[in-house]
């Protein structure tokens, strides 16, 4: 069974290929069947392989499709490596991906670019699968860029909106900045190890480097650069909110569940190097902490439903980075999975709402949808609960709590991280339920156009279930102590060591976390249900702060001033190539001489005689000067 691994990326690829070649000539039914079918099959195979993988206790499975290219001591194969880590990602990508495809069939039903949409979506899944299955960094880079391309195409899917195109371009370019760092990292790695095979590097690294080695740190930072770009972390986070220009399923799949977590995957994958570069790892944590805070703040102020979710995505990934930063590897992966569930759910639900209200994005124009769209309401509520980490019932609680706890109790954890995470948790629950209350409670502001069909509801329900029950595979030993996840990842990712004598305080931390989450909800309830006036007062009282947060801390403006404008200015002023002036000058000079000499050709006989005489005199003078 496991030898069918190669089928998993191949199926979506074939799907994409057929859809592209067939073009829009294909009837929608067929296109939908191909699009979803390919992913569905992939998901099925994944499940089977996963089952076999678990039952046979395989540590890793390696499969070479073909040797990609080999020059001198560099040899890169088009080859896959399956281990627990990639398995988890595989599962999420294919399974959540499948659900989102199903949902899209309904969502995109009336869109003229139906086929194109599924083509891109399939292509994306293929690239993402390659990314997580790659056994060497070059292939990983291929996937890495591939998902970037698809995200570009899908953000700009409705291309006749000028601004969508620009949003897409922004996303691609900003991530490309990160990719550049990643590429340089690759070059350095090759320079050191003379291979780009991940497993080889991970095994060789400890032998070659002492912990804290300079090169290791540098490389780690470069890889981090790549991760930061893809995962929309500080300082390259500002593309993600604009990426919401794409259709909601896209936001759900690419900009919430899978692609943006590629950075998390990369760092988790290369954990061996980060362990040798504590400084870099610390910075991973710091970046995560800061990002989760500032993104949370921005989320508080947004009115566009999807932008809130976008910022919350950034901040949740911030949690994952924080976890990676404190060496809570499995916790990070765990949170990734849960986050994929509930964030996909939230996006899809939000998408439904927006779809139902004729592309109304501003949640203050919604409201009262509780009754109108019960399914959406309940599913959205579960998702929100999971995001806000409502204790005990939601999966989000368990995943986030683990991070909080390790931020405090982990060997590499410290007070700052803990505080940041805690504050983040509070903010999260506030903006989450602000969203819930504003959208679904209160009186109805916009009339509901059309109601979602089964195709769109089923995925919501499934995801809702997952984002509740998903947490049960990993429970803290204070309650239940299930460790399926960490056991699964055990062979791949080192388990986290606890600070001496911190064990006892775990329960305390959990209580704090629970209370914080609940109080957040409470605050949101007060501000947006009980007396909304207060909310406005706060807004107007600290208007500047609100503006700053609303604009995502003005990072865009900063980059405009620092990079974009200078670049454009430079290229504009030099549009007509200053170097060309030099050659033009040469030509002008020559022609000047031409004119000057032409003037000597007067046509007057005596003038010619004069010339000859002058020449004669010159020569005679010369002869008298030179003669030895």
């Amino acid at each position, binding site marked *: 069974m496991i030898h069918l691994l190669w089928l998993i990326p191949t199926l979506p690829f074939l799907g994409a290929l057929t859809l592209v070649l067939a073009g829009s000539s294909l009837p929608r039914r067929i296109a939908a069947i191909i699009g979803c079918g390919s992913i569905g099959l992939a998901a099925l195979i994944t499940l089977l392989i996963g089952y076999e993988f678990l039952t046979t206790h395989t540590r890793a499975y390696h499969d070479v499709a073909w040797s990609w*290219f080999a020059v001198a001591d560099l040899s890169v194969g088009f080859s896959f490596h399956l281990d627990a880590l990639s398995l988890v990602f595989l599962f999420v990508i294919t399974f959540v991906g499948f659900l989102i495809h199903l949902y899209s069939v309904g969502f995109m039903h009336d869109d003229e670019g139906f086929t194109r949409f599924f083509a891109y979506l399939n292509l994306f899944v293929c690239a993402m699968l390659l990314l997580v299955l790659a056994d060497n960094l070059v292939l990983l880079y291929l996937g890495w*860029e*591939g998902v970037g391309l698809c995200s570009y195409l899908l953000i700009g899917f409705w291309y006749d909106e*000028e601004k969508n195109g620009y949003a897409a371009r922004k996303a691609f370019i900003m991530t490309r900045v990160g990719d550049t760092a990643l590429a340089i990292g690759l070059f350095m790695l090759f320079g050191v190890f003379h291979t780009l095979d991940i497993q080889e590097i991970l095994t060789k690294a400890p032998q070659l480097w002492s912990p804290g080695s300079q090169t290791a740190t540098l490389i780690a930072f470069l890889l981090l650069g790549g991760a930061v770009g893809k995962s929309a972390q500080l300082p390259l986070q500002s593309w993600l909110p604009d990426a919401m220009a794409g259709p909601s399923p896209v936001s759900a799949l690419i900009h919430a569940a899978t692609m943006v977590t590629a950075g998390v995957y990369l760092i988790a994958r290369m954990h061996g190097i980060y362990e040798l570069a504590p400084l870099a790892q610390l910075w991973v944590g710091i970046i995560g902490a800061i990002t989760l805070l500032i993104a949370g703040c921005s989320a508080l102020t947004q009115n566009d439903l999807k932008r809130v979710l976008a910022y919350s995505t950034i901040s949740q990934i911030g949690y994952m980075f924080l976890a990676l930063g404190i060496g809570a590897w499995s916790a990070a992966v765990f949170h990734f999975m849960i986050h994929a569930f509930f964030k996909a759910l939230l996006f899809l639900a939000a998408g439904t709402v927006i779809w139902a209200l004729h592309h109304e994005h501003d949640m203050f124009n919604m409201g009262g949808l509780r009754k109108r769209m019960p399914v959406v309401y309940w599913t959205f509520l579960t998702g929100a609960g999971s995001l806000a980490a409502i204790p005990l019932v939601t999966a989000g609680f368990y995943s986030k709590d683990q991070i909080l706890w390790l931020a405090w109790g982990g060997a590499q954890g410290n007070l700052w991280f803990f505080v940041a995470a805690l504050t983040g948790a509070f903010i999260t629950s506030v903006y989450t339920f602000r969203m819930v209350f504003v959208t679904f409670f209160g009186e109805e502001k916009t009339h509901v156009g059309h109601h979602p069909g089964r195709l769109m509801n089923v995925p919501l329900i499934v995801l809702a279930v997952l984002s509740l029950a998903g947490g049960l595979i990993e429970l803290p030993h204070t309650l239940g102590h299930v460790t399926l996840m960490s056991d699964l990842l055990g062979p791949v990712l080192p388990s986290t060591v606890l600070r001496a004598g911190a064990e006892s305080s775990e329960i305390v931390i959990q209580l704090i976390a629970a209370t914080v989450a609940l109080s957040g909800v409470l605050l949101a309830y007060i501000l947006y249900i009980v007396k909304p006036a207060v909310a406005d007062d706060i807004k107007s009282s600290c208007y500047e702060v609100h503006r700053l947060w609303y604009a995502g801390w003005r990072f865009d403006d900063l980059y405009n001033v620092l990079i974009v404008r200078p670049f454009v200015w430079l290229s504009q002023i*030099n549009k007509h*190539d200053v170097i060309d002036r030099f050659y033009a000058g040469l030509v002008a000079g020559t022609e000047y001489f031409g004119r000057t000499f032409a003037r000597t050709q007067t046509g007057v006989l005596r003038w010619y005689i004069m010339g000859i005489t002058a020449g004669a005199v010159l020569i005679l003078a010369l002869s008298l000067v030179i003669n030895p």
Partner: protein
Amino acid sequence: MILLWMIVILMAGGVLAGIVATWSTVWCRIIALTSVILDTLLIGWIWAGQEVSLQPGATWIAEVNLPWIPSFGISFHLALDGLSLLMLALTFFLGIFAVLLSWNEIQYRTGFFHFNLLWVLAGIAGVFVTLDLFLLYFFWEVMLIPMYFLIGIWGHANRQYAAYKFFIFTQASGLLMLLAILGLYFVHGNQTSVYTFEYSDLLNTPMSADLARWLMLGFLAAFLVKLPVVPFHTWLPDAHSEAPTAGSFILAGLMLKTGAYGLIRFALPLFPGPAVEFAPWGMLLGTVGIVYGAVQAFSQTDLKRLVAYTSVSHMGFVMLGVFAFTEIALQGVVMQMITHAISTGALFVLAGALYERMHTRDILQMGGFWKRTPFMATVSLVFVMASLGLPGLGNFIAEFLTLLGAWPASPVLTAIATAGLVAATAYSLRIMQKIFLGKDSHTHVLPDLSLREKLILVPLAVVIIMLGLFPQRVIDTARATVEISDKQQNTTPVPVRGMLSEKGGNHE
């Protein structure tokens, strides 16, 4: 002997086509097409046949050596090795499309056009296989004149200016090369009293470092201008934007490659010492080219001009790679020569197609064409992505190898060059944005690609993808040559490289 035939076929075909055209243009086109296809088949047959002799240290795959002007020690010496094989294959392969391209575009003086077209190809093919320096200069010039006519007669509005510029730039640099060749000839002659232009004899001619430096500069002049490297690039945008589609196609696809080929085949092996001295400057020039070209490309509004500047940027990688003196980098360069030829050539084809439809090359007047020309849009997407070096397409392999190989030589420059890829993204996406995305507010009819255009573009797209996924065949073919010239460099003392990697300061 077969090499001679290939060139003869082209020249004869050209003459024949020129004559036939007076009666029937269609037959003229057909004759041109067949002669190119014939050559393609020949080279393909060789390539298929010659598995064994591609191994390192093998002799030439095919060779022909006839006395030409014995009193000067000039012989008509052609020889084929892996690199030349690839280049020839490229030349003939693109040649086919060049003919197809002009099928509708050129209605005026068809015969003379095809005569020039085939003679350009012949000249280029000659440069790729010659082993006699005099012959090199000979072919070098032979490919210029017809190109001049292609631009000057069938070009766009400002064609005369562009044609002059192209011709005079290349001529001036070529003459400097001639001086260098003669210098080498006499240096070698005075020492061994064997006066010959034979490449293999002139290799490692002992001479004073100073002289060697000057002679190498002579060669570089020709190659760098052809490449083109930044201070000498200004002929390219004009030539490209004014030339007819087929002209730009050949310019970008093949003529620039003669510069790169010259560097690898002649400049470096003939003057190993000075080349190593020059290396840091070479890499610097390359990097400057990459960045400068990218920045320039971003601001252009004339589509062909824009693409022209992208080639300036891409050729920067060639410089960077060649002077890194590592096998990986050189392989990257070879790959770059091929993939750039295809991707940029295809972009020019698209520009031509758009021009045929809209009669403008100004991208500001375009936009939102995706709806109306989905096929064209998809194909363009492929090549645009290729030009920004998306993995899975040929250009990625080229740029990745080049940079990977250049890293040990000079980390700093490599890093800058890599950053240049971001700029590449900027201008590439700008093409998509301005032409295919955005609101479609145009009235004129805009048919999607015709069958003929599909016949041209689809094969190119397929090839670029194939090169991206299965590049090994090409790499193997070039290996022998690359390893030789790589060894060639490494045998000579390399103070520079040490110095450079200090700059990187990352070796433990």
